[in-house]
Every structure is written in C-alpha cells, then in structure tokens.
C-alpha cells in the first residue's frame, strides 16, 4: 500500500511523495505522477485530462472559504431574498418561497428538484467540507470523515446556485415594467456565495485529503 509518510518539500508544504500510481479517470491510462511543484498540474499524457493538481495552502484556503460559505449560506436563507412592489402591494420572498409555492400548486417534483439544487446540495457541500477539513486542520480524526468526503463528490453536480442567478436575471427582465423588484440581503449573500464555493472547490486537493482521512488497511 502507499506509504502515508509525510514529505516536506522545499516550500515547506506537506507534499505527496512522487511516483504514485494513478489511472486516468477519463481514459484509464496508468501513470506515475512525478514531483508536482506547488501550483503545478499533472495531465494525462494520452487524453489530456487533469490527473493531479497541487495547490498552495490547500487546506487553509479551502477551510477558510468553506467557513465563509457557511456564513453566507445562513444569510442567504435567513433574510428576505427578493421583494415585489406592485400597485402599493409588497410581496417579500425568501429563497424557499418558490419551493413552497410550487409544492402547494401541485408540482412536488419540480419543487423537490429546486429544493435539492439550491438549498440541500449547497448545504451538504459546505457542511461536508467543514466536517472533513476542520478536524484535519486541528490535527484530530473524527469518525465518518471518509464517508462525508465521499458524499461531497456525489452532491457537487447537484449544487446549481450559479444557474439560479441566471434564473433571477431572466425573471427580473420578464417582470420589467410590470412591477418593481427590490433585492434583499439574502440575494447579495447568495451572489457572494457562488464565487466563494467555486473557489473552495478549486482550491481543494482531494488526493491530499484522501491520504489523511482514508481508511488505513
């Protein structure tokens, strides 16, 4: 089995020892990943897919972004999202108002899909990152870390907040001239949450984490 011994490189980071075997996830070509410098990427020599990417301060950066993301996620759900002013009437909505309205109108399938992709999946994404990375940062092992890290991979494709923003943009245009739309605090924190989570995802070094939270045979 792979040795889990730490190798400290010249830049002082805990590096993965070079020469480990990996199979390309796209074309299955076996490769040995050599010493990847900080900020460097190893590509599959046959199909060009990314084999491994080494990121500077991956743990600290990802954890910081995930914690910021949690804060923004709570704000996105706790405060008013959008308000509609039409002939003196003001309608306040939160992120979950549409889900509830769709459910009450008899389209629970659509309601569940929206709930999953805008609230449940982003929450699982943020919380699993924190659950896995915070103990690593503190140097402790917590049972269930490996399971939560697997969950993260599974929920990621279903987290679609950036598409939701596009939906808001189109809706605003459609309501133009008919009503006045007032953005709430939640909308702004939602807009900030998207780049925060995207940065957290791209700064995560999954192989590095797996070597520390994986089950040891």
């Amino acid at each position: 089995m792979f040795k889990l011994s730490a190798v400290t490189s010249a830049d002082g980071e805990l590096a993965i020892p070079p020469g480990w075997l990996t199979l390309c996830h796209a074309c299955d070509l076996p490769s040995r990943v050599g010493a990847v410098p900080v900020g460097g990427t190893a590509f599959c020599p046959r199909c060009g897919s990314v084999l491994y990417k080494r990121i500077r301060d991956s743990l600290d950066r990802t954890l910081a972004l995930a914690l910021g993301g949690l804060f923004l996620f709570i704000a996105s759900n706790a405060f008013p999202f959008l308000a509609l002013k039409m002939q003196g009437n003001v309608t306040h909505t939160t992120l979950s108002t549409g889900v509830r309205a769709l459910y009450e109108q008899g389209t629970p399938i659509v309601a569940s899909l929206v709930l999953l992709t805008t609230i449940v999946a982003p929450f699982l994404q943020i919380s699993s990152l924190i659950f896995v990375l915070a103990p690593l940062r503190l140097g402790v092992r917590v049972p269930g870390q490996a399971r939560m890290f697997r969950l993260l991979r599974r929920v990621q494709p279903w987290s679609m907040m950036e598409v939701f923003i596009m939906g808001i943009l189109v809706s605003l245009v459609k309501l133009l001239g008919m009503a006045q739309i007032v953005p709430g605090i939640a909308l702004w924190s939602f807009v900030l949450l998207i780049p925060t989570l995207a940065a957290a995802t791209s700064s995560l070094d999954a192989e590095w984490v797996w070597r520390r939270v994986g089950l040891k045979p």
Partner: protein
Amino acid sequence: MTPDSATSRIEDFASCHDCGLAVELEGGAHHGATHCPRCRAVVHRRKPDSLNRTWALVITAALLYVPANIFPVMKVISLGKAQEDTILSGAIYLLVHGMWPLALIVFFASVVVPLLKLIALTFLLISVQRSSSWRPVERTKLYHIVEAVGRWSMTDIYVVTILVALVSLGNLATIEAGLGAVYFAGVVVMTMIAAESFDPRLIWDRARETHG
C-alpha cells in the same frame, strides 16, 4: 499491493470512482467488484452496465423532451385572463422585447443544451458500440463538455420558481407552474444521470482494441 510486486499486473488495477485510488481488483480485471481500501466505495473496472443504462436514460429524456416543449411551463392569470408560456415562447418573448442577449442565453440553455446533450450522448454511445477508433481525445472532450453544460438547462425551471414565488402571493396576478415544467425537470434530471452513467473509458477500450 504495489504494482511492482511480482503477482500484480497493471491491467488488474482500476480507479476508484469516489476517491481516485488505483485499486488492485481481486481475481483480476474481469472478476467482480472489490471495495476500495481507502474509502470503501465499490470499485468497478468500468461503470456497471454503462451502455444499457445510458441508452435507457437518453431514450427516456428524448421522450420527455417532446411534452416538455409542447406543454406550457407556466400560466399567467391576470384579471381573469390566462396566458400560457412554453419554453420556446418564453425565449421569443425576451427577443421581441429587445432583450436579445438574454433571449439567446435562454434559448441556448433550454432548447439547444438538452438537445445537444441528447445528440452528443447518442453519438458517443453509437461510436463506442461500433468500436470506433475515431478521435478518442476529441470524443473524451465532448463528454466533458456534455457533463459540464447540462446544469444550465435548469435556468427555465428557476425562472418559473422565482416568478411563482413573487407573483402568486400578490393578488392582482397569479403565476402557476405548468405541466411542461414537470416534463422539463424530468429531461434535466434524466440527462444529468445519463451523463453520469456513461463511462468515458469505454471510448478508449474500443479504440485500443481496434488499434491493438
């Protein structure tokens, strides 16, 4: 279990789908499933029954695509009058009102993306089944694109959700989600699972067989 040991052959290794570890399969490459020693996921050399599953999901999505475009995705009831919008008429509305960049995005996300996804997946499935060795690098890239752009089809579902939330609570007008939205949600989910069930490594298996 290092590939250097005398009994291990590189062909007996498979990549764990969940954590990426190169796992040596018990009993060699053509034997049953092994659990990943690092994350406990079931490791297969290839995604199980990939071609059949992907075909089934692509066909389902193609069937749902028809009612998704025929039935209205939302109904606007204002002062007793009801106006229904389909996916296409929603994009045309934006175009007529001079919002052509947004119209283009909506048209692309709701009409072109699902259709392209279905065509691309069908093309990949047929090319794998015919053991094609044609441009495996480009076909792998095509698969990655299909995987990445699919989510943008959700735009229209979100537009309906937001409009329903904002307007159904007011008393002057009501917006209801239509049957088309249900079918369209089905198209998005089916094509996403279809892309997930397709195994791009099959492109390389067949390409390698013919090239020796």
